[in-house]
């Protein structure tokens, strides 16, 4: 299916999901993880997906990453159907998923080695650049277990950024971190995003986090997983997670979100 960017849009569409559905059949039950999800994400856009646990957010990211196939509907990147994973769309997982048998540098080089046409000197240079960007160049020869949780997430971020993916998929990447480290990473990620203009799809449970980072916040509801509502966040950047304007948006979104959870319990 061809889907060129409409003339009215200033930026081209990067990701198009149309009528996507995905279900899982386990021995004990059938789960409709996603049901008729349609979503367009523009190039360079920062989109946050928020919703109660089990509403299919990770499933959606897996589909975009090409790690999984939809049962129905289409998922396209740059107008092409997604046929599998690749270094153009990198996934950053909830746990850092760094490889313990490699050093910090080795981990960042792993993805770079899968990109064609780079000499080893260029790879090394890029790896060091991105480690510098996340403030961990000093630790490049360290072993993974010698880093703190937040440092590991930063290495994972550098590893995801280094191959220069057009799309970065982040699945609750900061869920396990303390509030202070998280705030620091919000700063980092906004700075990196504005410098490198990636398309980012960011999954979180934390509404404030979503409002702080996203151009758009998309709310999901579970059983079956569906998009319920969308909010644009026209706040200027860089945003401070503790600002009053931001709190207003997040209060509003949280209220809507609670509505789903309650109707879920009632139903």
């Amino acid at each position, binding site marked *: 299916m061809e889907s060129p960017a409409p003339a009215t849009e200033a930026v081209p569409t990067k990701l198009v999901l149309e009528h996507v559905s995905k279900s899982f059949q386990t021995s004990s039950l059938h789960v409709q993880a996603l049901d008729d999800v349609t979503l367009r994400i523009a190039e360079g856009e920062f989109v946050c997906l928020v919703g109660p646990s089990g509403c299919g957010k990770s499933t959606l990211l897996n589909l975009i*990453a090409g790690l999984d196939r939809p049962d129905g509907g289409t998922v396209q990147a740059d107008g092409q159907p997604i046929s599998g*994973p690749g270094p153009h769309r990198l996934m950053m997982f909830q*746990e850092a*998923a760094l490889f*313990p*048998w490699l050093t910090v540098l080795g981990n960042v080089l*792993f993805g770079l080695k*899968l*990109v064609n046409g780079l000499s080893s000197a260029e790879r090394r240079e890029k790896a060091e650049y991105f480690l510098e960007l996340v403030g961990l160049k000093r630790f490049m020869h360290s072993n993974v277990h010698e880093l703190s949780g937040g440092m590991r997430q930063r290495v994972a971020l550098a590893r995801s950024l280094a191959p220069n993916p057009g799309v970065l998929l982040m699945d609750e990447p900061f869920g396990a971190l303390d509030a202070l480290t998280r705030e620091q990473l919000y700063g980092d990620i906004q700075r990196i995003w504005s410098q490198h203009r990636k398309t980012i799809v960011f999954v979180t449970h934390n509404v404030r986090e979503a409002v702080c980072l996203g151009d758009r916040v998309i709310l999901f509801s579970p059983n079956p997983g569906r998009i319920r509502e969308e909010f644009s966040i026209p706040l200027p950047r860089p945003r401070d997670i503790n600002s009053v304007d931001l709190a207003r948006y997040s209060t509003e979104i949280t209220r809507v979100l609670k509505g789903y959870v309650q109707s879920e319990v009632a139903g």
Partner: protein
Amino acid sequence: MIARWAVASLFFACLIGLWQLAVNAHIWSPLLLPSPSNVFIYLWSSLEDGTMLEATLVTVRRLLIGYGMGILIGLPLGLLTASFRWSQDTIGVLALGLQTLPSVCWVPLALLWFGQTEAAMLFVVVMGTLWSLIIATDTGVRTIPPIYSRAARSMGSSGFHTWTHVILPAALPFLLSGMKQGWAFAWRSLMAAEIYVTILTGFGLGHLLHYGRELNAMDQVIGVMLVIVMIGLAVDKTLFAPVERFLHRRWGTGRQ
């Protein structure tokens, strides 16, 4: 470091002291319990006339060839059983069953099939090593958190690259302990084979042990046992321990 050496030396000196005390007490006949010095004299003379060195070489050669073959066959088979349902249900089940078989049980079969030849020896060693190595590799690969290969796939790794760059290194700690266990099994099976089977192509440590018993030469029996223990220790300290230390450092496991 020096302190650790001192403790170890003191410990073994005490063991030898106790042994000498037991000999002096004349509880057992000197025929059954020779003194440490007698064993030392035997070891020295066997070194001088070359029998010990030759037997050691013969045994170590068989061990290395058999163990090497066991690894070369076992590792790929273990990877295979971990990857496909059909191979798990066939080779996997076979390996699970045969690894419970004590390796000495292979000796009669090896004798009938290969006669009193070098091949019989190798066969027993390979059978002793192979099955447990398959099981260890299989377990190692299955224990890897799936997140590693998902992360690698997301970065564009697939097929052979994933195997060599993600699954094998991730399974390395398990592979190493499997290889250590395989080494111990290889020793056991080779000694069983050498003690039970006399062959003309080479006179190994097991044979030396066997003839020590036939001649009622306890100094020889104990001396050969000591040599076997020494070789085992040397291999562990020089081959396995450095790799293990490296893995512990990288993974941050074990006590520092």
